[in-house]
């Protein structure tokens, strides 16, 4: 049956920065505000062609992960009773990654405007550095300390309340 709007697509094609194509269900793609915006714009124009959305900042590895997340969340979108199950899934999902992947995933979530994934990643990163020492955080995230010992002492002094 023809839908009431001028055109309505069920699938879109997303291209990663390394030129791999992903066919994505519209409901899944809509989890990303960036993709949703593209789809809405095209639909407004009334195109019936398949939409190709190139993502110049996201590699296929990372895009696969973002889409896995979107697919799961699209499945649960209409069901507000299984949020515990979904939370559990989210946690297991992120636990698998090393910090480099987590970082790229966070960037992709930000770029693709997948707000709930971005929140999740930020919370996860925050939780994982919460109880670490400054040294450990520097090590994990490969942050080079460019302070002199004097500068470091000064900062500690300025915010003495925050340091043990």
């Amino acid at each position, binding site marked *: 049956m023809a839908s009431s709007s001028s055109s309505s697509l069920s699938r879109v094609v997303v291209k990663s920065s390394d030129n791999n194509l992903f066919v994505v269900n519209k409901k899944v793609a809509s989890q990303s505000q960036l993709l949703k915006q593209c789809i809405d714009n095209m639909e407004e124009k009334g195109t019936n062609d398949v939409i190709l959305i190139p993502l110049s900042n996201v590699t296929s590895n990372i895009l696969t992960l973002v889409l896995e997340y979107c697919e799961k969340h699209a499945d649960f979108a209409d069901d507000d*009773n299984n949020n515990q199950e979904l939370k559990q899934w989210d946690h297991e999902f992120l636990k698998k990654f090393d910090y480099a992947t987590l970082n790229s995933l966070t*960037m992709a979530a930000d770029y693709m405007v997948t707000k709930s994934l971005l*929140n999740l990643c*930020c919370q996860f990163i925050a939780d994982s550095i*919460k109880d670490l020492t400054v040294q450990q*955080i*520097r090590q994990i995230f490969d*942050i080079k300390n460019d302070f002199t010992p004097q500068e470091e002492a000064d900062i500690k002094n300025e915010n003495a*309340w925050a340091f043990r």
Partner: protein
Amino acid sequence: MFAVGSAKKRKTAADRISNLPQNVTQQILECLPLQEAARTSILSSHWKHKWSAISQLVLDEKFFTSILKKNKETTDMPLVYSKVVNNILFSHVGPIWKFVLFLPSWLPNEADISQWIRFAHANGVKEFTLENARGLKKYIPTSLFSCKDLTHLTLIRCKILRLPATFQGFPCLISLRWKMLSKEVSVLETLISKCPQLQSLCLIVYDWESTLSICAPKLKELFVEGSLSNLSMEETTSINKLALDLCCSKFQKSRHMSDFFSTLLKVEKLILKESFWMHLEYAFISPPTLPKELEKLQSLKLVGVPLHRRFSVVFLLCLLLSSPRLVQLYIEVSELETACDEQLIQNDDTCILPCLQKVQLFGISGLPAELQLIKFLLACSPALEKMSIELSTGMGGAQEKFNFATETLRYRRASPNAEIIVKTKKLFSDSYNFTPLWLE
């Protein structure tokens, strides 16, 4: 030369987490307790000032306790605490979106508190939480009422004697949460009437003697916990989500109960929790149906329903039969008392729940009233897709469960697609920590 070299070095030093966009690092810092966030200032020059730009300042009870722990030896805690807060506020750069302030029982200097609130206001605070320590008798500083830009306000154990005469209202406020108020019902009513945009209201109120009349034309979500004499919402007709964990002494009278539910014409989600049921007395006579149907009601969640009591069964039926569009039903049975064998639910062919698709029952132990309810729901729901029944831990052995399953299998189902799932309660099952999503 040295300076240039060092700047270059600093630039390349940024790695992994450091090259995340500014808004993302800020969000990560906002997920950390304030002290942890401040501690990142020492990571590298790239991080030095990041924390002072976060738009959420959470000085909550946890924060306060940790400051207290670190300064066990000090004799002048109010001074130390004021200094810490001043230090944080003075090093802050940029807007403050959210400000959470806990006031310990020995209350720092009142002038300081007013100053902190004014500082937050000057930096455009939108979401403000003020929490009084337990047992604190002091009234909250009036400077709060000059924060005209607030969109979200949370007051915990805050006492307000009266609103300042100059108070113009909070023109942008969309969400108000006030936990633990008792003598302030009339202050609350005035406050609500001065917040024309209010959409969400969450109250924990204990005042047996007062009637709370809510007059908020744009209110969409309401949650009330505690006790009141009566709750009236005559001017408030847009509510679509309502949760009550409240005992209203006037609701004992069928007329008041009917009046109340008659104002809920737009409600789509309704939640009635323990206190609502517990305080209905045996003398309560439920109307058979409500005078006006709950036309929009799609999701009904009932927690702690004493199914062994006649009035609650009758009222449950009254709700079901007055909700022709109901799609989802969730009932958690109270496990407190023993059964009564009276035949409370009669199946009758005229009852029909045409839209009901999903039923979840919890805490079922196979009592007659429960079986009658299951039988009734199966027979009256032609669109039913799924009924899941979680058995109570108090149910006894395998034989008893088997008997229950065979019994429910026999019942006629109006829907050819109905799937019935019987499961035993998992220990620490999440369903018992039930909070509706929209209240989080």
